């Protein structure tokens, strides 16, 4: 059973671009985690391993260009490498959707990024769908619907 605690996207400048918490924590706790993790993750060198023991849990992170994808996972429960694969799937999916995704895409289309993430991960970060094609189909359907909504509005 997976128990991902949170998923954060942090830019190289230390700005949080996306955050999703799968556990409930008090606000100050979250701020503390974000602050500490930002400094830890940003200061690590490229060759170091992608797993950091952080407080009572582990953190798996991976850098893609200017963005760090950071996942808090539960010790002894989650598989570290598998979490890396989840991150990779997420990036791959966004990449296909946006067509070579960049940080700006995630900023301007944050609702899409959340949409893709929600479709992939539910309930404590359990992977709900591993097929990239399925997720994209789903998101594209939503886009079409949104587009139709928009069209209806303009026509009416």
């Amino acid at each position: 059973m997976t128990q991902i605690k949170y998923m954060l996207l942090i830019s190289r400048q230390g700005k949080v671009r996306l955050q999703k918490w799968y556990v409930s924590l008090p606000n100050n706790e979250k701020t503390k985690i974000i602050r500490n993790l930002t400094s830890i993750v940003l200061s690590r060198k490229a060759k170091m391993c992608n797993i950091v023991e952080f407080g009572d849990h582990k953190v798996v992170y991976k850098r893609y260009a200017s963005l760090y994808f950071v996942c808090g996972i539960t010790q002894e429960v989650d598989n570290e490498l598998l979490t890396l694969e989840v991150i990779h799937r997420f990036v791959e999916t966004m990449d296909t959707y946006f067509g070579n995704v960049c940080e700006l895409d995630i900023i301007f289309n944050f609702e899409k990024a959340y949409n893709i993430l929600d479709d992939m991960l539910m309930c404590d970060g359990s992977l709900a769908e591993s097929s990239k094609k399925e997720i994209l189909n789903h998101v594209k359907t939503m886009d079409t619907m949104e587009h139709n909504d928009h069209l209806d509005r303009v026509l009416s």
Partner: protein
Amino acid sequence: MEKRLGLSNNGASNSNSNIRGLQIFIADLRSSQQSQEQERRIQAELSKIKQQFTSSRKKSDSSNKLAGYQRKKYVSKLAYIYITSNTTKLSDILFGLDEMVELLKSNVFSEKYMAYMTLEILYEHQEVVNRVDDLVTAQLVKDLAGSNDDTVALALNFIGVVGRLKNGLAYNDDVITEVFQIIRSPTAAEHLKKKAALSFLTLLKTNIDILTGDLQRQNHWIQRILSLLDDSQNYRLLLSVLPLIEFIARYVNPSQCVRLIPQLTQILYKCLIGGTSQLAETQFPAEYMFANVPNPWLITKLVSLLSVLIISRSEISENRAGLLQASNIDTDNLGKLRLCVSKAIELGTRDVSDPMERIVQNTILFSLINFASKLDPTEEALSNSATALCSLLISSETNIRYLALDSLVKLCAISEKTVIDSVCKKNLNLICRLLNNEKDQSILRKLVDLLYSFTNVDNVKIIVNHLLKFILTSRTISDNKMKRDISVKIAVLTEKYATDTNWFVEISLKLLSISSNATNNDDLIWERLSQIVVNNPQLHKITCEQLVDYLNNNNTSETIIATGAFLIGEYANLITEKISIGELFNLFTDKYFIVSNTTKCMILTTMIKLYKFAPEIGSAVIKFFQLELNSLDIELQTRSYEYLKIIQISNSIGNKALLDTLFSGMPSFNSRTNPLLRRLGNLPDSSVNNNSSLWLKVNKSEASLAGSPERRDESSSSVQNSTSPLSSMSSNNGIAPAPPLSRSRSRMNSNVTSPIKNNGINDSYYSRQNLSSNWREGFTRSISHRQGILYSSSLIKILYRITNPDIQQMSILQVSLTFINQTEWEMSGFNTETISYQLQDSPSYIIQNVESLSSTSIMPHKRIEQKFNITIRKPFEVEKSVIFNSHFKCGGSVQFLSLKIGIGMTSTLVNNVEQPGMTLPEYIGRWRQLREGLGNDGEYQLVVRPKKSGAQDLSSSLIQIMKRLGFQVVEQDSISNTVFASGIIHTKSTGNYGCLVKLKSAISSDGDSREIEITCRTTSAGSLSKYVVDCINYAL
């Protein structure tokens, strides 16, 4: 310019968000450089939105109400403000909550989506939940029940994402039922079912009462959920159903899930063995391949569920109800599982160039190696796994090295000592080399953990020296915490394994001398050392001598000074040949000014102890204390004052009695557990035994001091305790091993195995079974006939056959069941489960050697077979016979059959034709004999009316029945209307019983039907005769 995240380089960004206002707003914020400017822009936007919202509220006129699109735009801007401000602007956007709920009610999909998404992000805040939870839940239930799949999907997602946070979702019956409806609905779209499974898991995790609160609901719902697995080709659905089942197996009802093992094994086998082979027909759908490997997520989830259902030998003792032990899995499936493990090893050690592929292969490798320990691995298998892992240690990828070490540490924790030793011997050099070259903190930590698990009496010196050298020389460990952790480990290891006391003292002192500054852990180390030294008289002198050497060094660590202050204070008189008391006094005076107040206090005490040994240094000591009377520290001041007074008093009395009493020698310590063990961190339990601990000596000396045998016993039991796994150490004190453990051991020794190791709850599990309607027919038939039809319906026919596989052991029966598909469709997901009445506390019968079904599906009009053995241990009522459940899916609907097979005491009878039967006089003789021997105790009588009253010749039909049951019937003509039968009942534990039965038929008192009077006498007092009569009654 922004950099692309860089996975592909095709196409331009298709930015297709339709909200222009939002895009402009985001662009505006990004273009403003100063944060003040940004802040102004945000505030302006906020007030504009606020104005729009309030004005729309005021105008009740519907034409002027805010259009859906506008509302969506404003809500999305609020969401962006929230995200971009790192959640600090929460209170500024709360005013928009009502509008968000309004937006949620919209029928336009994109608007509804925006509302759900924003609320999902905001729901982590309690103030948000408090304000809108009721409204949101109401809308959620409406959406769930709706017919629009896309809306339902949104609602399910919402539950799946926020259900774990603090809100009322998991306690709302409407939400729960709606979600479950989607799971069970045969018509729901697959992607909805998938989401529903995870949403349901979310709710269940938050509120386990959903299933545990209502047993009937539990049985029914779990059955439904498990049946989702039947479509074993549907990898998408499996992915989300597996975690749900795992949760149920872990926390709700494991026994209901055990029957899934063959099915799960089959799926795993198909993924791992089939999916990686080159053959076209076993090829895995490409969509579910990830980096050339079949769905790693699915594999890890399968393995994770299997690890819950299968318990390893060491876990039997724990109260794990209803789980299967590897030795009880049938050989076929066990073989498949083991094959999967070796496949994973093969995959994991194969060379691949693509980094992602390597990661995926290793994921599978690590999860299966951790699982392998559950499969009753042979030593060879274990060391193969270990070798595979060690070969990964030289990988250039840090993640792999880290995880290989992690798995090795776990593997060591479950392996036998011999395995660890052999692995250690082969790889110790490699690991030590890694220790010196590794630069990554996380990996170093694991390396140290591994070395710790490797240590035994023989290699303790080598390993400890390596670790010591590592702390002393390594430049890579910058943080002190790690240094301290290693120090603690060294201290534990030296105490645990040292056989050479001098070496122990040497290492401990070296350890203390390098610790940088006094910390909690170091305190523990020196305190522990002091305790051991005090308890072992032979150590007093050498320790003190070495301490003096350290103290003479100018830059000694404070812990050394503290240790010196305490130990030299105690035993200064032993080392006077090396150093005089006066010199010692000077030495401590020097150190006094460079240490902290706590150590100063100790030195003050040392001073007066020195004075006790050599009163001639009195004036210097007094001067020293007088100086400290002016100390700013209250504790130091008090001590100096008190010690001065003590010296004055003993001087005025003229003898040292007071001093000697106050500062008499330290008695032995008797804290048995090493407090350091608690600081080892999260190292898994190690099964490594310590053969020669110093504490053992301590306890012995302590016991011999006390001189009482009881004390000695106690100490030896504590030694036993310290040899048990580390975790139990913290629980302290030697208590005899817990009873369940010994019980399970004895069971293992007697080679009695039951398929379901079930503690206690099984009785109720048995009685909780809802037998299928018309189960009785097959039950009755199986009591009187050795073979026949157990169950028959338009869908399926079940045939049974009861045989005695071994003529020498009549108490063992073999039941063969044949399932015939009567329909025109394939039956899939076929699995079965046998439930015995009792498993614990000497059960009456046990089920063994349950063969697995040859296949989990049956083609139309084809059949499959299953066999299992029943060993009858002692008499029991036929009503408590085996229950046999089968599940299968046919034509889209899930079928469940629960049948009872009639195995009773008469099933152990055997009609031996060759043996001549008894004659009537013999029979009467025995009948009397039994009467004389047991009186009424061994007799039971019952009067019944046979159902088939039309039988012409009752006596001959009775003879038929009795013969079929296995009795021998006395051939006689002298007494009419009476049948005399005899037989031998076999049981495994309580032996064989003779049994005589008399059936007398007569016209009933009311005259219109016949009655049969059954009388049974057995060679045993008690209820056996009643059990036999019951069986006969069923057979009539």
